[in-house]
């Protein structure tokens, strides 16, 4: 019985909903479209509850770290910021009707800690790209040499100095981006779409069970 509940009932529910949503996408039926719209709202609401689970588990992890005295400062900062944002933001919204987007403490935490942190990490990306590009552009093989040549031509074609050096570089850059690059990108997109169709059919038919565990 437990196997039926855990394995087959989810697959039946999933298949029914999948066909229902496919019908909504492909057919113009007001009743069906309205029901599907309500269904999507319900999914969003249910999904929001997953945030609570994630917040609880993250808090538990960092409380343990503080107890074990492994990352006391980092974990304390994280827990303080997270719970002040949640509790103070909810309190101000529920009692005083202040939107979290306009609440001073919540906004201070966001613009004083989260936002600069995000920007710092994003700027580190530039150095990582340089390091990765150096490794990729070393002409160790025919493919790497082609990549190096294409990269240099595109960079020169895009930069204003390229046109000053040799005007046709702009056309060469355009051709590389619009013909071989575009063809490659479209192959990747099309193959992904076809594979996704097959994946969803595997899931609907219950063949693909990896996402719900494989235990016997």
């Amino acid at each position, binding site marked *: 019985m437990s196997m039926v509940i855990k394995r087959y009932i989810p697959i039946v529910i999933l298949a029914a909903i999948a066909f229902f949503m496919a019908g909504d996408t492909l057919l*113009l039926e007001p009743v069906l479209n309205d029901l599907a719209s309500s269904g999507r709202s319900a999914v969003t609401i249910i999904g929001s509850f997953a945030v609570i*689970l994630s917040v609880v588990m*993250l808090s538990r992890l960092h409380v343990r770290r503080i107890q074990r005295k492994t990352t006391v400062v980092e974990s304390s900062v994280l827990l303080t910021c997270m719970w002040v944002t949640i509790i103070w933001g909810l309190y101000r919204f529920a009692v005083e009707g202040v939107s979290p987007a306009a609440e001073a403490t919540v906004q201070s935490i966001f613009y004083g800690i989260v936002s600069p942190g995000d920007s710092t990490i994003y700027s580190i990306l530039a150095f*990582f790209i340089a390091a*990765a590009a150096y490794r*990729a552009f070393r002409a160790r093989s025919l493919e790497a040499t082609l990549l190096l040549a294409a990269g240099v031509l595109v960079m020169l074609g895009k930069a204003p100095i390229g046109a000053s050096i040799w005007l046709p570089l702009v056309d060469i850059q355009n051709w590389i981006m619009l013909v071989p690059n575009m063809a490659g990108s479209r192959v990747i997109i099309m193959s*992904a779409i076809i594979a996704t169709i097959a994946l969803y059919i595997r899931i609907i038919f219950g063949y693909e069970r990896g996402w719900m565990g*494989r235990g016997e």
Partner: protein
Amino acid sequence: MYITDVELSARSGYSGSLLMFIVSLVIVSMAVYLTIKGRIKPKLRRLAGIDAIDEMIGRATELGRPIHYTVGLGSISDSQVIAGLSIASYVARKCAELNVRFLFTFASPSVQPVALDLIKEAYVAAGKPEAFVPDNVRWLSDRQFSFATGVMGLVLREKVAANMLLGYFAAESLIFAEAGFRAGAIQIAGTTNSYQIPFFVTVCDYTLISEELIVAGAYISQEPGQVGTILGQDYIRIIGLVLMAIGAVLYAVGIKTLTSWIAL
């Protein structure tokens, strides 16, 4: 009443063709049926990245270091995340069998209940339910670069032996891959995002390009039903290519019947 392509365009967020949906369903179903009945035995080409997973876990066992696995930024409704979770289930089971610590990270909270359940079940299937540590399944943040920071810190602090990046990735892909490279980890990455694939190819040891990620779960399982769908998608691809070629020629000479027919 059918929705025409014009109506589909007008309905923001909707796309599709009833005819193509039914044709795809019929083709894949037939391929699955024929494969299950044994009338066709599809031969799958080797996927070096997937074949190397056992080697990665073996390396982690020898080094006594953990394995890091992430499905990236996507939510549970993303096909890349679903594919990533299918592979994660296999990797978690192997890790449980070989007593390798399995660290799983993700950005969308919607992944958490599914990931917790399937990884726990992988440990149960390996006969080691007591070895499952829920804290190793970690939600770090749903903000892109906060999540990237968390993953980078985790990979470098834990000095992971293998870094597996299989799912939905955007600009943070290179941050993950470079962190793994600096930690000296053997790396496998896979995504369908064509903008991130070059970064992964450059930095990682193995890359699953586009559909290779989506079919990896079926490739690992080798079940006839799943392998049949791979055959089905190949049939769809061949039919699509033939129709594209015919359509291009007909369109060039001014006949638009085939294009209108397909858009039904």
